[in-house]
């Protein structure tokens, strides 16, 4: 028996999945959730095998929710219309259902999930999902048991920390399991520059750039932070600042 959870903020959207599930006797619906917060809690408690996940939901969307779960279960996305998501799903092996969907289409999606599968395609979808999250110009992090939504413009800088990236804001420092390269690429549209192998800085906060030893510089932020700038980082910084 596989455990199933539905996460969708619209009651009728949940009810149709519930109805379609009735003919699948090997699947047991163990919970229904209204939003992402509830979703995270319930997934951690009940450890389902499969979830049906809407993308547009209150507070945090489906992608953001997935990002915050350690070992996410298999996911079938149910969404109405999301150009970006559709593109992401089509390139990956994960299934998605476009609302409104038929019973036949639903059954097909379930069939795909019957065999126990590797989580590799999910990794792919996570990458694209994360990109979509950044399209919303915010980053979602876990702060102990709390979930924090950090608007991109409130980030001072990012610092590499082994497998994690430290996100430094006025309210403190948060860790996120992502690569520096990932942030460098996705934050470039928001006036961030990778000034150093280990630092990405919000260029809008820069008050001064100082020369420091040979071939290297320092940037000063209006928050008081001082960060090293490498030679190649200085070139990128100049490009971002348009000088």
């Amino acid at each position, binding site marked *: 028996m596989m455990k199933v959870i539905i996460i969708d903020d619209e009651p009728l*959207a949940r009810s149709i999945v519930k109805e379609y599930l009735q003919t699948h006797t090997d699947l047991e619906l163990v919970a229904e959730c209204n939003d992402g917060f509830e979703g995270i809690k319930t997934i951690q408690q009940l450890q389902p095998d499969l979830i049906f996940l809407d993308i547009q939901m209150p507070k945090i969307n489906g992608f953001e929710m997935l990002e915050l779960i350690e070992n996410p279960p298999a996911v079938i996305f149910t969404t109405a*219309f999301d150009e970006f998501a559709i593109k992401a799903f089509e390139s990956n092996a994960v299934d998605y259902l476009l609302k409104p969907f038929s019973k036949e289409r639903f059954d097909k999606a379930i069939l795909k999930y019957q065999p126990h599968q590797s989580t590799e395609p999910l990794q792919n979808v996570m990458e694209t999902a994360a990109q979509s999250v950044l399209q919303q110009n915010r980053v979602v992090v876990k702060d102990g048991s709390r979930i924090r*939504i950090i608007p991109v413009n409130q980030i001072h800088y990012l610092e590499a920390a082994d497998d994690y990236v430290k996100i430094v804001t006025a309210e403190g420092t948060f860790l996120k399991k992502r690569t520096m390269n990932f942030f460098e690429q996705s934050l470039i549209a928001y006036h961030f520059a990778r000034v150093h192998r280990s630092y990405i800085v919000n260029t809008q906060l820069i008050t001064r750039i100082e020369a420091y030893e040979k071939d290297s510089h320092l940037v000063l932020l209006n928050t008081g932070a001082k960060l090293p700038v490498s030679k190649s980082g200085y070139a990128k910084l100049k490009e971002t600042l348009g000088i």
Partner: protein
Amino acid sequence: MANSILSDKRLRIFFTAWWLVWILLQYIILKQTNVDNIHAISDSIISNVLLATCGFFISNNMKYYLPRKEKYWYILVVSLTVSFLWMLAQQGCMWLFLKEGDPYIDVIHQSWGIRFGAGFLLISSMSMFSLLWYSQQEQREQDSRKTETERLSKEAELFKLRQQLQPHFLFNSLNSISALTGSNPEKARHMIHQLSDFLRGTLKKDEQQWNTLEEELQYLQLYLEIEKVRFGHRLQTEIVYNENMLRFKLPVLLLQPVVENAIKFGLYDTTDEVLIRIEATEEHRNLKIVVKNPYDPETSQPMKGTGFGLSSIKRRLFLLFARHDLLFTNKDNKYFITTILIPQIV
């Protein structure tokens, strides 16, 4: 193609009078130099009729070819040439008209200088007049084409802005209906009707630009009922207005997208129940609409400008009223407030 000068009745009368004056003038001048009646009359008539004909040809020619570059040189050369031809034609005609040996033939020959001068003066002024007249006509046509194009593109833009139907809304509504067909077919049918009425409203061609508040509120109600089916008890709405406000006018389909924006903002920014408040009041004889939705200042995404939903409304208001200050937003700790002023110009 431009109209010919003579298509204007007032100008036809004017030209007739003008040439009669010239005939009379030439007759008087000839009389003063002791020319007898028969010669004076025939000379005046023949000269001026020929001149008028030349003028007509020049002006008609400009109807098909309007010189652009070098237009003043064109007038000079054409006027000189035509004047010369006119003089030859005039002498030819007089020669045909008069008996051989008539001493008046010599008078005509001897007065070629003054005749050429007068002919050149008249022909060049006629050319100038035609040139100005046709240029002006052309300009006017260009202007009207331009204003027409501008009007069309403005209308197209307004239509497009009005029609921005959110695909999310449509597909989610269809999904709700799909769910209801199993559990509550009667309600599903009802929702299909509401959705159809709503869609018909958005597809309505721009027969009219304005609606009364009453009509807009009815349309809004349709939308809200659909949304309430989708979101269930999470969505609460409150609409406040005064009976006598119902006659006030506002642009078609303006209210619904504003409320849609508020609902989206409200519903996706909190997990609690959401109350959307819509209030219509009168302010300085303008219609003032205030839409209030709750939001969470801590986690709310930093909105770029006023957000897409509202920026298209702003654009519409600008196209209609040429004012940028008709839509503004502000927020306090709990509520995001959108205010719209609609000038009552009709």
